């Protein structure tokens, strides 16, 4: 199916463990983004990528690592999970980046709980 898919949908892990959230898009969009959504904070940008092999930090990058070896995939890794990383994570893609960014397509999210 065309679109942007995230996996897993739900994940429970323990502090200190490494966790990887997957994101795959079928539109060949150049730009991909990772956001986390927390009550009272809204969506905050973790990392973004303008193209394969090009990534950059967003607002809250600490404790996260990304890679983009292929245009369609943009995995997010929590190197050593902490409770403060309990959140809902959204991957998004867009055909164009700055300055318009007018249409972000979001996945359905991964709900991550760190115990």
């Amino acid at each position, binding site marked *: 199916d065309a679109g942007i898919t995230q996996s897993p949908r739900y994940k429970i892990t323990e502090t200190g463990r490494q966790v990887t959230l997957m994101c795959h898009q079928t539109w060949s969009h150049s730009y991909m983004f990772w956001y986390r959504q927390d009550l009272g904070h809204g969506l905050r940008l973790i990392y*973004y990528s303008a193209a394969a092999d090009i990534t950059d930090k967003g607002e809250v990058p600490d404790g996260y690592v990304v890679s983009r070896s292929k245009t369609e995939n943009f995995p997010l890794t929590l190197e050593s999970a902490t409770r403060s990383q309990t959140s809902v994570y959204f991957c998004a893609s867009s055909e164009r980046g*700055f300055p318009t960014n*007018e249409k972000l397509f979001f996945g359905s999210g991964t709900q991550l709980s760190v115990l």
Partner: protein
Amino acid sequence: QKEVEQDPGPLSVPEGAIVSLNCTYSNSAFQYFMWYRQYSRKGPELLMYTYSSGNKEDGRFTAQVDKSSKYISLFIRDSQPSDSATYLCAMSGRGTSYDKVIFGPGTSLSVIP
């Protein structure tokens, strides 16, 4: 002060009512203004997009931007139960944080049949 402020609600209205959702912002560099709708346990989806000041209408939805007051609004006419969702304002512009889209925290709306 957060860059984008939005009343979190929740807002509850009867079916058929006119709904007004608002955001204020602090950074005058914002030029592109968006509204996203997010249903429970789903990702946000783009609802409206406007550039600079003015109004834009799309069916029952009207987006307004007042750059002089740093204030944007989304109006929903003849609201329906299917409009029950969280509405996120978003904006971007050169010179803003990371030159990427900044989201408000969202307003939760319930339309009661």
